[in-house]
């Protein structure tokens, strides 16, 4: 038996109807595996923010989830425009979202802060013009 479950998803850019479906799938899988509801919720919140960011800013990308006995590792990788100043992007309230996206209720500038708040580890690697990779590690509570 494999030591963990590996899941992969293609996230479609600018599609606000399907947005969140990768996270929905990971949530269902964690729930089915008997992970505690509060841990599932933390994973879902942080992953959704990452998924939405790829929909809004990066013309989509690829999401993976590796589920171990004691943790889940989520990656969200895109080939979008990248983040010039990660520190600024992490600042609550800072957003580069368009008015159209804001009218849907996104673009509050809370996406990255939420990821940091709900994941135990949040690593953002980005190169302007090349893309961004976000790695989120959530450890399951005892």
């Amino acid at each position, binding site marked *: 038996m494999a030591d963990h479950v590996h899941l992969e998803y293609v996230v479609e850019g600018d599609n*606000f*109807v399907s*947005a*969140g479906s990768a*996270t*929905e799938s990971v*949530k269902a899988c964690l729930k089915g595996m008997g992970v505690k*509801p*509060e841990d599932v*919720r933390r994973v*879902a*919140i942080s992953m*959704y*923010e990452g998924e939405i960011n790829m929909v809004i800013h990066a013309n989509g990308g690829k999401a993976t989830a590796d589920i171990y006995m004691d943790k889940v590792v989520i990656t969200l990788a895109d080939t979008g425009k990248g983040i010039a100043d990660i520190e600024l992007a992490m600042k609550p309230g800072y957003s580069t979202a368009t008015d159209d996206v804001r009218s*849907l*209720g*996104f673009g*509050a*500038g*809370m*996406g990255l*802060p*939420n990821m940091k*708040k*709900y994941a135990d580890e949040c690593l953002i690697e980005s190169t302007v013009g090349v893309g961004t990779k976000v790695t989120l590690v959530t450890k399951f509570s005892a």
Partner: protein
Amino acid sequence: MTVQALAEMLSAKIINNADFTRQVATGYAGDLLSFVMGKAPADSAWFTVMTNINICAVAHLADVAVIVLCEDSEPMPGVTDRAKEQGINIISTSLDIFSAIKKVLNEGQI
């Protein structure tokens, strides 16, 4: 209190009844989705005027007990179908957000 009791208290229209026996533990009000994701407690009633399809994903992922659409907001196309698929309770009231919450608090239910 249950979602059913909340719906009756707010004279709300039923948009989707996934499980009205679900308990509402607390509440949260807001329209910016990342605020709701980050701050709405599990099992809360979420009071909003936002009606696009993304409210379903947010409510589902944040384990919200019921979405309370205020000011007679009508859900946008696709919302009801998605709510059925994902098992999300949605009700709609003519009250504005402040008045809806005031009513719930005045009746001492949350």
